[in-house]
């Protein structure tokens, strides 16, 4: 190994040490999931009622999941995407996604997301593409626009209905 090579190798080996010294500023996002039931009154208005995990729910019960995120780090989080599942035994309620400064995406397999997932459908005329039934969604993701500043919070919610 030449000197030059040895010096280069030493530099490279020392990089993590520099990085560790500079990691003081970085985002640390903490995620919290909450659930509540959506109670719709006779007049069409609705309100949320706490949902204790020990309290059983019946079929048709509307559950609102609220995903909250807080950047507890020292730097803003970039490209924040909050994901929630649509559990087995429930079905996503179309149009129920609420969130600030971003957009929702959905997944049929838990891996790939799209604002409007498509599926192939075999018809007598041949194979066509059409929008998937929201009942087929298994995950939902909220993609925030811009940064989540350090010490800032964000939350989005969506509703499912117990089948």
């Amino acid at each position: 190994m030449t000197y030059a090579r040895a010096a280069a190798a030493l530099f490279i080996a020392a990089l993590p040490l520099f990085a560790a010294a500079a990691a003081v500023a970085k985002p640390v996002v903490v995620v919290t999931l909450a659930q509540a039931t959506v109670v719709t009154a006779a007049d069409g208005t609705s309100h949320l009622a706490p949902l204790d995990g020990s309290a059983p729910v019946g079929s048709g019960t509307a559950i609102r999941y609220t995903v909250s995120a807080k950047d507890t780090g020292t730097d803003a989080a970039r490209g924040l995407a909050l994901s929630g599942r649509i559990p087995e035994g429930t079905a996503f309620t179309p149009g129920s996604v609420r969130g600030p400064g971003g957009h929702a995406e959905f997944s049929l397999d838990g891996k790939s997301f799209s604002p409007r997932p498509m599926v192939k459908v075999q018809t007598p005329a041949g194979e066509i593409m059409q929008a998937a039934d929201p009942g087929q969604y298994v995950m939902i993701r909220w993609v925030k626009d811009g940064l989540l500043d350090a010490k800032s919070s964000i939350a989005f919610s969506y509703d499912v209905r117990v089948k």
Partner: protein
Amino acid sequence: MSTLQRPSSRLLIAALVAAACVIVGDVRQASATQTPPNTVISNTSSAGYSDAANNNYTTNSNTVTVTVQNAPSILLTPSSNKTIAPGQTITDAFTIQNTGNAAGDVQITAGGVTGTGNDNSYATGATWSYTYGGTTTTAGDLTTLNGDLAAVQVPAGLSIVVSVIYPLQLLATSGGMVTTGVTGTITYAVNGAALAQTSTPLPSALETDTVKADVRIDVALAQSQNAGTGVITYTLAAADGTATWGARDSAAVKLLLGSGTQGVFISAKVPQFNSAPLAISGTAVASTGSTAFGYPVSGATATIYYTTNATGAGGSWTSTTGAIGAGATYIGVFITGGTCTINGASMPNVEICPAASPNSTPGNVSNPAITLTFSVVQPSGTGSADANSISTIANSIIGDNATTEHVIAPGITINTLQDSTATIASVTSGVQGINNATAVNAPSGASNVMQIQALAQWVVLNGPYGNAAATGQYDGLFTNDNSHDFTAVSFGSGTYTTTNPTAGYSATTSSTTTAGATVPVENTIQNIGNHSDSYTIVAQAPAGWKVFIETDPSPGTGTCAGAASFGGSALSALGGTSTSSGYAVPSGTSLNYCAVYTAPSVTYLSHAIGSVVATSAGGGTGLGVNSTYHLLYAGFVAITTTQTVTSTGCNSGVVVPASGVCPTGVIQYTVDYHNVVNPLDTSNAQEQSFKGVMTKAGTLVITADGSTGSGLGNNWGAFSGGASQPTDTTGATNSVFAYYTGAAAGTGPTAVWQAGVTKFTAQIGGPTFQLVPALYGSGVSQGTITYSVTVS
């Protein structure tokens, strides 16, 4: 909680996002299946982000859970609204789906015939049933139903069918509505952590059934008659008069035609006359109409049947291709095997379908689905041509929608079936509904009554009383037939005188009658035509006579009232005619009438000829006209008694007055008899025709009774002790004398003359003798009996 992971490339994420635009493969299928109770639903969220150095991070949240509870719910769906018919039993099915998340027990908390149907009051007595797992169970009332349902666990997502079964009374009217509905719950039992739950009572939507009048087969009977042969042809046409229902198989027909048959039957009674069916002429023909008029599109066959049974009883019918056996009493056409489209559904075993545009009414079928044609020979005999003497009606026997078969046929009596009045008939096996007594009155199933009569034959007989059919030859000139028959009538001639009584008979002998004497002659008219008739009677008076007609007030007595008040005509002029009309005589019956003559009070010949002509009002020619004649005899044998005192018996010197006599005197009596017919009187043509009038052989008997009285009476017998045996100039010893003795009735007779005779009879000329008119050409026209008495 959080989990830091090593960052990944943002480019990689972008690529994954792009690829997610199209997902092919294993994705969750949208499903309505409910989540079972006790299912734990858990959820966890995550966040992905990067830092300023593009380091990627992923962090997970806490996990939240809930447990699924019993969530009973149901969905009630009525069956489609129906078109229903009076008499029908309707089943309205309500599907109750368990839309909850567990198996449960369905209960019906309310329901049945409910709602605001205006014919609900005609749908009382509803019962219940339920169908589950392909099995239908009759439950009866609601309590029983719920008891049964409590034992049935309906899994989530499956259904049970509960039915309201109601009979629709016949009073329900077309256009009315019946509504039914149910209110139900479902109960889930305790299941682990899932608590027992009962759904909120949920009413179904109402089912509204609309009443449409039941099937009505209109039957029309038409007839025509051959003007030459009188053969009557009947055409029976039938069609469904409704646009809603078709005529269905009828068990009644099976009873009628045999166990192997089931369909609809349309029949006509073979017309009868005098209680006997008329003979069939030719063959019967069944013709099917177009499908537009209600004949099934396919599958149906039409077969002719007939029976010779008087009541058309079941088991007596025979199928035929058209030839009808002798003595047939009913003919019908049987239709079987049809399929119709009714209320949008294809229905088998319906033989006459609703027509596309029904336009028939009872007794009026212009577009028939089926026709039956047959002919009969017109009847003959008394009254056969009277109006409407031949009458018949057609019937149909069909099934309809009624649960207990509601046979459309008048007066049908079959086991427990109902007749057209919905009256359950008595159990009379084998008595079928071929009742031809009821005319059209929907939905009777009967046709119009069709009436006709045989072609008329106008035949009248006019003759002597009690013998209208008598034949004769009143004048010897015409044919001996029933239009020249006659009645010979004698009558009292009043005072008879001869112009020369002492000279005996001469050609100038004549007689006179009492002025205005009436001579009644009884007659009989008989209507032997086949049609009741009315007759005009015209009487012709002989010259110098008058005549009128009257109804015979005392038939068979030889006398008449002699007054026009007995339905008579006006008195004719001398030698004129008198006409009387309107003598109604039913076919096959007779009428007695009198021709009452008034004799002239003029010099009279021995007899005259009157006549009466009867003329049919229906057919006044040929056999519709018949005459009879009256030979009016004033008596053509004149008897003149004279006396001569051949010896006064008086002593000489005694002055004897004229016609005086003394004891022992002898009085001679002469009895002149002669035929006064004067054929030489050419002034009277009728007299000429009587030139042959003579006494019947052996009938001229002259009686001389001397014991009938005293004083001016005939009392010569009181002097019989001096009587001498009578002699007769005719036939010499051929005349037969019989003698009586004693007073009053006397004793005898004896053929031996003896003293004391008080009475005798003389059969002039013996048993073969006839007293003929003068100038008859041969024979005796006059004679004299002479006998004497000696005054004691």
